[in-house]
């Protein structure tokens, strides 16, 4: 199993550009998450999904959008990039909530907006 994969690994965007961060998991997990991590800080939840077709906002959803059309994929869309969105983005998945909610993280995407 590859686990959770993310592409791209690195990206530089100009202010106002848009992009999609890709996330795929092959563990048949129902729950998927997007986090951002600013330097020296903890993880902030952007969006999460408990199954195909179901998404909900986390702590910091402004400026982002998600969709979940399949169990495996959970792309994150950045519209009109701003310098405040410079961060490392992690995608994660878990089988479900409760006692089976340990999260498996992808390697991350390092995004710089200039």
């Amino acid at each position, binding site marked *: 199993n590859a686990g959770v994969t993310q592409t791209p690994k690195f990206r530089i965007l100009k202010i106002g550009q848009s992009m999609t961060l890709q996330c795929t998991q092959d563990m048949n997990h129902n729950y998927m998450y997007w986090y951002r991590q600013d330097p020296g800080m*903890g*993880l902030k939840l952007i969006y999460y999904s408990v199954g195909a077709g179901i998404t909900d906002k986390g702590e910091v959803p402004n400026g982002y959008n998600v969709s979940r059309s399949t169990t495996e994929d959970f792309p994150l869309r950045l519209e009109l990039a701003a310098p405040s969105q410079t961060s490392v983005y*992690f995608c994660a998945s878990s089988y479900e*909530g*409760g*006692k089976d*909610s340990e999260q498996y993280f992808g390697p991350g995407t390092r995004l710089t907006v200039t």
Partner: protein
Amino acid sequence: QQPVQSPQAVILREGEDAVINCSSSKALYSVHWYRQKHGEAPVFLMILLKGGEQKGHEKISASFNEKKQQSSLYLTASQLSYSGTYFCGTESHSWGKLQFGAGTQVVVTP
């Protein structure tokens, strides 16, 4: 409100013990612990659930005081590989929606 971790950082010699604390102002359903090495993704260590159930690595121990909304992670007989930043994540319901603390940086020296 994100959970509060203490201490912010700790330096240990190999073989020494340390305790990392995580406290929340909200009633908790579960506490998760993750370790992140520099430039890498967080890795799951342990989950502690309301009611006493636990799941995680055999060599890691932790406690969860439901009444005080506090959890502690115990690093016993530390090894060089224990170095990294430890994060607690808390949730108030069984939805898997975690709030993470700011992290505790652990450095283990020879």
